[in-house]
C-alpha cells in the first residue's frame, strides 16, 4: 500500500493557494495538499490532527509574509512544540532575502524556496514537495543557497 502523504501549505494569498492546488491537481495529487491562510491556522490544524490522532503532515510549507502569525513566527512555534518539531518546514518566499534566509536556518527550517514565475515551475515544485515526502527528492541545503546568493 502506498504511503498516505499530506502536505500542509500556508499562504495568505488566495491566488497562490489556488495556483498551488491547481498544480497538485494537474499532477493527479489533488488530495495531498492542505491549504490554510496563515500561521494560526497551521497550529490549529496540527492541534486538531494531534487530538484526533489523525495523520500529521509529512511537510509544512510556509509563506513568509502573512498577517497575524508570519512564516518565521510560525516556524519558531512549530520547533518549540515537541510533537511538531520533527516535521520538516520549507520556507516559500516571493523573494530572496539573505537575512531572512539566515534567520530561517537558525530557526530550523529545512530549506528556502523562491516562489515560481511559471506554471511549469509550479508543477515541478508540487512534484518536488511530494517526492520529498516519499524520500525521492532532497532540497538544497541552506549553506549552498546562501553561497549562491548574489
Amino acid at each position, binding site marked *: 500500500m502506498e504511503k498516505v502523504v499530506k502536505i500542509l501549505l500556508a499562504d495568505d*494569498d488566495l491566488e497562490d493557494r489556488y*495556483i498551488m492546488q491547481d498544480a497538485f491537481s494537474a499532477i493527479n495529487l489533488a488530495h495531498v495538499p492542505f491549504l490554510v491562510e496563515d500561521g494560526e491556522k497551521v497550529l490549529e490544524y496540527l492541534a486538531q490532527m494531534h487530538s484526533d490522532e489523525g495523520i500529521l503532515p509529512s511537510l509544512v510549507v510556509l509563506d513568509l509574509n502573512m498577517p497575524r502569525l508570519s512564516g518565521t513566527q510560525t516556524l519558531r512555534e512549530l520547533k518549540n512544540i515537541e510533537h511538531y518539531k520533527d516535521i520538516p518546514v520549507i520556507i516559500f518566499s*516571493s*523573494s530572496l532575502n539573505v537575512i531572512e534566509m539566515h534567520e530561517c536556518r537558525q530557526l530550523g527550517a529545512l530549506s528556502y524556496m523562491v*516562489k515560481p*514565475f*511559471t*506554471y511549469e515551475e509550479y508543477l515541478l515544485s508540487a512534484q518536488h514537495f511530494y517526492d520529498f515526502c516519499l524520500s525521492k527528492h532532497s532540497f538544497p541545503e541552506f549553506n549552498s543557497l546562501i553561497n549562491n*546568493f*548574489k
Partner: protein
Amino acid sequence: MQEITHISLDTDMDLVLVHKRTMKLGELAGLSLALQTTFATAVSEVARNVIEYGHDASLMLGIMADLKEPDKFLVATIKDHNNNLTDRINGGLVYARKLVDKFSMISTEAGVEIILHFKIPGSQKIISSRIEQWIISFNLEPPVSPYDEIKRKNKQLQELAEKLKESETQYKELTNSLPMIIFSMREDGELLYANSWLEEFTGETLLQLNVNKWANVMTPEDLAARWEQWYHHVAENKPLTQEIRLKNVLTNEYTWHQLSAFPLSDENGKTLYWTGFIVDIHARKVMEQTLKDNRELQEIKVQMEEKVRELKRSNLELEQFAYAASHDLQEPLRKIVFYSDYLYKNYSALIDERGQLYFNNMMGASQRMIQLIHDLLNFSRIYRDNLYLEKTDLNVIAAEAVNDLEIGINAKQAVIEIAHLPVMFIYPIQIRQLFQNLLSNAIKFSDEERIPHIKIYALNGGKEIQLIFEDNGVGFQEKHLDKMFSLFQRLHSREKYEGTGIGLAMCKKIADLHNGTITATSEPGTGARFIVTLPKEVVV
C-alpha cells in the same frame, strides 16, 4: 695705597693749590709743621717741573697705611703724558729726592710717573674710617682762591656734562633697541621726535611724514578716519589708544599696530605736546582673526555633521523604502508573469498573429521588469548594516565571477586574463558582485570585429590597491563618465544592448561602501579601462 685727593697740574696757579693740599694732608696725618713743610716742598718741586716741561699732568695724593706694615707713608703720585720729560727735569728734582724717604721715576710709553713716599713718624693708628673723613674734608675744603673755585666748578660741570651725554646716549640706544616706535607729536600732528624704528619700518623720515601727513604708510580709507580721531582726541586732551594699519617698507604689506599717545602738560596744565608709542600687534590680530575663523568653522562643522546625519538617515530610509517597494512590487509582477505565461501556453492558438506579437511584447516587458526589480533589490541591499569585513582572496572572487558568467564568456569566445590578485579585508559578496558586473559589462560591450580580451590585475599603491578591469570592446566617450555611474543611466539603446542601468551604479555603491572609488578611461572603439581603488584597510 688709598687715594685721597686729586689735582690737575695745568698752570702756575695750581702750584699754590698743590702746596696747600700737601700741607693739609701732612697736618691731618699728624706731621709736625717742619715735616709738613718738607713734604709740601718736595711735592711742589716736582709739580713745578712738570708744569713747566710736561704735558697734561696731574697729582694724586694718597696714603699707604697697611695694618700689617709697621711703616705708614704719605704718597704723592705725579703723572705726565710727555714721555720725553725725564731728562729735562731730572736735574731739577735733586732737592726733592733728598726730602722724601723714597723717590721713584718710571718712564713708560704713555708718559712719566713720579712717586714720592714720605714716612709718617710715630705709631699713629691710621684706620680706614679716618681716611674716609680726610677724603670728605678735602672735598668740602673751601676754595683757597677764585681760581680754585672756578676750577672746582669747572670740574663738576665737566663731570655733569659727561654724565648727561652718557645718559642721552643710553636713552637713544634704549629707545632704538625697543621693538616699538616711540615718538612725540604736536597737537597739529607734527612729529617732534621719533626713534629709528619709525623710519626703519615705514621707510619715511620724520620730515617726509610731516609733509605728506602719513599718506604713504596708511590705507586711504584709514588715513582720513585716523586723523579725524586724532584731532578729536587732542581736543578732549585724553589719552588715545587706537589700532592702525601701517605699511612696512620692506614687505609692502599693511600690518596691524596699536598706537598709544598721552598728552604732556606744563605745571599750569597746558598741554605742551603728546608722547606715545606704536607697537606691532599684527600677530595678535592674526591670531584673533584665526580664532574667530576657527569658531565659525567649528560652527559650520557642527552644522555639517548634523546635515550628514540627516542625509545618512534619509539615505537609509530611502534604501529601506527601495527595498520594501521592490519587494512588494515583485509580488504582483510575479502574478502577471505567471498568468501571461499560463495564458500563452494554453490559449495562444486562440489569438491572432497581431495579438500574439503584442502578447510576446508584454511578456518581454514583464521579464525586463523582473530583472529591473531584481537589480534594484540588490542595489538597495548594499548598505553596511549586517555586513562584515572578511579577509578574502580576490583570486577566488575573480574565479567565482568568471564561473558565473561562463555561458556569456563561451558564447563570445572571450579571453579572460587574470593576474595574481591580493588578499584583502572586504565585503566578499559585494566585491564578487562588483567583479561580476564589470566582467559582464566587458563581455556585453565587446566589439564584434574582434575576440573580447579582458584583463584583470591589481596595482599596489601604498595605502590603497587599484583593481583594473581592461577590455578591448566598444568603449565609451569620456564625457559620459559621470553619467555612467548613476542609477538607471544607459549609454545605449535597449535594442543594441540590454540592461537596466543599475550595474555600474551598484559598482559605485560597492566601492563607496569600502571607502573606495571607481572611475574609468576609454576611447570609443579601442576598449575601456575601469579602475576600482580600495583602501587596504577599510575604516568603518
